[in-house]
């Protein structure tokens, strides 16, 4: 059974998000996604300052066996990326919801957060895919 923290919001493409009060949204991939990918060996991070729309390709995580795009869950500006992943992509395997975060977006449309899945909804999605 995958760990799906209830306080986070999710996207069908297996990213998680967490929003701070200042409208900064942290994005990573879920534990379920990292376990499907296996040992991660490379992360292509977006550039800080990039303006993204919800659904845009905003990075790539690669395991030994496959490459997987990371999509922006919401629209806004990329304001920070997790540089530690350049040398230690395995942080996504060991701590997907913590040290394995990938980038932060300054949200442009707060209402977009309502489009994301709750933990229960994401749980259902994961179970339906298994």
């Amino acid at each position, binding site marked *: 059974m995958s760990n799906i923290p209830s306080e986070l919001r999710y996207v069908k493409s297996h990213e998680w998000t967490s929003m701070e009060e200042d409208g900064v949204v942290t994005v990573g991939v879920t534990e379920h996604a990292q376990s499907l990918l*296996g040992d991660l*060996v490379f992360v292509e991070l977006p550039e800080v300052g990039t303006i993204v729309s919800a659904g845009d390709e905003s990075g790539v995580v690669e395991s*030994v066996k496959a490459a997987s795009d990371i999509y922006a869950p919401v629209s806004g500006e990329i304001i920070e990326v997790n540089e530690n992943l350049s040398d230690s992509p395995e942080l996504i395997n060991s701590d997907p919801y913590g040290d394995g975060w990938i980038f932060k977006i300054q949200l442009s449309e707060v209402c977009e957060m309502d489009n994301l899945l709750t933990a229960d909804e994401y749980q259902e999605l994961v179970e339906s895919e298994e």
Partner: protein
Amino acid sequence: MANKTALYQAHLDASAKIVDFHHWLLPIHYGSQVEEHHHVRQDAGIFDVSHMTVVDVLGPAARDYLRYLVCNDVDKLKSRGKALYTCMLDQHGGILDDLLIYFVDEQNYRVVLNAATREKDLAWMNKIANDFSVGLHERQDLSMLAIQGPKARDKVHTFLTPLQLDAVSTLTPFEFIQADDLFVARTGYTGEDGYEIILPTPQIHEFWAAALSAGIQPCGLGARDTLRLEAGLNLYGQDMTEKNTPLDSGLAWTVTWEPKERLFSGRAALALQRSKGVKQKMVGLVLEGKGVLRHGQKVITASGEMGVITSGTFSPTLGVGIGMARVPDDIGQNCFIEIRGKQHAAKVIKLPFVRHGKKMFE
């Protein structure tokens, strides 16, 4: 309906993640593909390769049959108990499969084929067999294990019977022996020392359990692929298909041209290709920056010519992106690889990348 090997339940018990590999349900890994890879490079790992097709070629014309069937020459096997790697070609020189042939005696050769090509191979082998006095006997009663790594042989030796131990202890690379029910060959697909063992299926459970008790790590198809890629060993269906010949697949060394009188399937087409000059070759590519190479990525030479990556991965041993590629034969020392629309610099090397745990290029 997918096939299961006899060890299917044992794999689940060892926490295997199972995938469908050419209609066989096999472990891709037992937790971490990368750790399994390191185990084989540094210690010992065991792979269930029972999906592979074992065929015994029997009869007075077994040698003549094989001398026609494959491009390497079984006449090179001067004494019993030796193995030969070769390709099997169609009449156009296209590679139908790559295989190992084990010389048991003059009327008995054992052939190990890929699982993915089983039907095609057997149809072809049976067709050719019509012209020879041979019988083909597929051994579905047998299973197969590969135990690989610098400590693989020592660890296997701890649980063999004294008789078996005595039989296998003098094997040199590419030699094999039948020891009781165990057909033990000092061959493999990882670039490390070790054994490939063919045994009656009912006995595989006991052997597997003994291997695990001896501290040999179960390894899945994932590690098998990264190990063989680092070792520069081709994978049929990926690095070569019927559209390729041994001459453009890095396997010219498996074509035995002498004696000239020996006719083998594909010989005329290969000779023609050789006389025109082979314009492509297989090389290893090492990505200069960070990233992972993948099958199908475009290779661009300094002079603007194109090649393609046939197998790519991230090398667990070297910590860089590596790939095998079919490229123009004048590629030089450096090239570019197109990854997601951007060009990345890569170094061209002579294969392999790794052998016996060591980096093999500057």
